[in-house]
């Protein structure tokens, strides 16, 4: 057993998730919203790997899911930034409050 209790990892992951949520909810810039999303995905990764280490130390299921999360985050970041660049070229803004033509 390591010297670090599992609850520390869970606390850090929760704090990082809440910080990411705050960034996502409050920022006006679409890129800053994306940064908040990356923080939330990373906090999920801490949980995956920590529970893998503390509950099933001789298997790697949690680490495999963390790899999947990283791959999906890479795909998501690429598509999101492409959309932001295309929107900026067409409308000269990356403010999510101005991009509301699909709002009901």
């Amino acid at each position, binding site marked *: 057993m390591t*010297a*670090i209790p*599992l609850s520390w*990892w*869970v*606390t*850090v992951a*929760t*704090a*990082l998730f*809440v910080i990411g*949520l*705050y*960034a996502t*909810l*409050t*920022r*006006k*810039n679409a*890129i*800053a919203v994306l*940064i*908040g999303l*990356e*923080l939330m995905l*990373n906090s999920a*990764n*801490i949980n995956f*790997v920590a529970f*893998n*280490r*503390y*509950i*099933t*130390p*001789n298997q*790697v299921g949690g*680490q*495999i899911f*963390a*790899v999947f999360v*990283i*791959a*999906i*985050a*890479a*795909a998501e*970041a*690429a*598509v999101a*930034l*492409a959309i*932001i*660049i*295309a929107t900026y*070229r067409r409308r*000269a*803004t*990356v*403010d999510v409050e101005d991009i509301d033509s699909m709002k009901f």
Partner: protein
Amino acid sequence: MTEQIIFFIFTLLVLGGGIGIVTTKNLYYSALFLSLTLSGMAGYFVLLNAGFLAAVQVVVYVGAIAILILFAIMLSRRMMTADEPQTNRQTWLAAIVSPLLFVALLVVVLQINWPLSTAAPTGDTLLLLGLSFLGSYVIPFEVISVLLLVALVGAIILARDTSTDTGRKG
């Protein structure tokens, strides 16, 4: 004891970077704080006996995603000016809801008695990971490869400047 000190150092990096992301007004600094947080995460993975993930974290997150975000910020430079407000009207609401969610999640999660295992961790995680990726997880592995390919092709098509396209119409 040493592990705890290392944990605190990396926590300082991760949470300090996170706080920096939400407090700084300059978006460029936000992205740099993001790479600080992501580097701290790589240290976490080493502490959790996941060396391969630490390498992947540095290569994919710090090396690719953070740099991609920096490029996107520089390409849409107009919003980078720090003199206009960077937050929207629901800031106060989010400032109330986020700490409440933090406390609520912690209260729930810390109550649970997790079935902790005291078995020694495997030394060679890389071997196990490789066997799993080409064994029981081969279908998700292939699906994620196709997803990445589709996403990158889609990103190129979305970001392409069609007005200067002199090639044949497609």
